[in-house]
């Protein structure tokens, strides 16, 4: 998706604000939002990529200006209204106005305290075989598409080298569209001088994780 979220390499941004950098949450509601996202019951068709897509579909001015957990709140409100879990009227009222949908029960405190919490696993070790070998020269495809994708615009059309094979992982483009499809995933190394016009003399590098359908052989 060509959206405000695709920030890598965008120019005009100023100094990085490092105030309050050692507090996990600046205000109590931020911690509540973070925790709700982990603890609440979810519809069976929810995926992390669908959530990311919901954030990307925010009003552009909201994406650029609202606080991080405020954007999470907006994304979850949007997702739950979309699938009918909640209505805008219920969100306005802060209480249930119609019967709940049957979902698996939410996590309880004892499910969380003292043990690891495993979100859905995106790895699919046996789902596909890699087309590219480590060391192969590749180029990112130039065309994106209008849905969710994890190919940033700054890498489109750029040449790189396969530096590691990570095995098949669920393809975010498909997961955000409600489909489960795994593809070989690679760590691809790019020279900064191939990415940025001003970096002609740079030896620096940028590595991205890219799915096989984002790449073509050179």
């Amino acid at each position: 998706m060509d959206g405000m979220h695709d920030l890598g390499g965008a120019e005009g941004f100023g100094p990085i604000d490092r105030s309050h950098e050692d507090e996990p949450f600046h205000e109590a509601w931020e911690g509540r939002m973070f925790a709700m996202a982990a603890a609440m019951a979810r519809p069976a068709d929810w995926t992390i990529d669908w959530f990311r897509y919901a954030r990307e579909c925010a009003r552009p001015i909201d994406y650029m200006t609202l606080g991080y957990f405020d954007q999470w709140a907006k994304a979850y409100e949007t997702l739950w209204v979309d699938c009918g879990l909640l209505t805008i009227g219920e969100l306005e009222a802060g209480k249930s106005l119609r019967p709940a949908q049957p979902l698996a029960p939410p996590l309880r405190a004892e499910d969380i305290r003292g043990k690891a919490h495993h979100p859905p696993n995106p790895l699919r070790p046996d789902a596909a075989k890699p087309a590219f070998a480590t060391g192969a020269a590749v180029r990112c495809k130039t065309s994106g598409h209008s849905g969710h994708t994890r190919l940033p615009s700054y890498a489109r059309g750029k040449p790189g080298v396969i530096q590691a094979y990570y095995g098949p992982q669920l393809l975010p483009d498909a997961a955000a569209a409600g489909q489960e499809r795994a593809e070989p995933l690679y760590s691809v190394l790019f020279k900064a001088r191939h990415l940025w016009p001003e970096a002609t003399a740079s030896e620096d590098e940028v590595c991205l994780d890219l799915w096989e359908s984002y790449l073509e052989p050179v």
Partner: protein
Amino acid sequence: MASFDGKRLSGIQRQLHSHLPSDPALRVKSLESLLVDKGYLDSGAVDAWVEIYSEQVGPKNGAAVVARAWCDPAFKARLLADGTAAVAEFDFVGRHNAKIVAVENKPEVHNLVVCTLCSCYPLALLGVPPTWYKANEYRARAVREPRAVLAEFCVVLPPGVKVRVWDSTSEARYFVLPQRPDGTEDLDEAALAALVTRNAMIGTALVQAPGEEKEA
């Protein structure tokens, strides 16, 4: 059923904007009450999660991994070969990351981690990311002008040291294995772990020996 329709999501976002208060504290409180009322959420679980991420899960997890890698060459080899399995040896609580990749700083290469598309971060090792990591400025600039970003964090690399930036575009979660500072040969694993900062594991700081000037 989710619609999986981006235009529909954008439309709902605009409706929410015109119907709900702009103050996120009010909206989040209302959202929590509603989810509990519906039976979709247990407030006790929210309390437990906030407590764990405020007190138990944080950069000290990652620091313990780094210190062990410095002290135990066999562990370091396992960590670099399969970060997920090596970190699993620690039995941390909190959210599990499906794939963890440790990237090692060396005299000739300095690593820096970013997520330009959202905010992907090794939560299990470093806890909740700092606000600057999720900010537009860091996400836009880290891939394009990493040395200017590092200078803002008072990290100036000697000439000849290459910067390698890791843009976290998949479910792999990157963290930096910093270089062990000189003058720490006598320190044990716990004392070494105390030197390792969160920023050093993102790549925006170097680890300082005790008595050296602290990072800015």
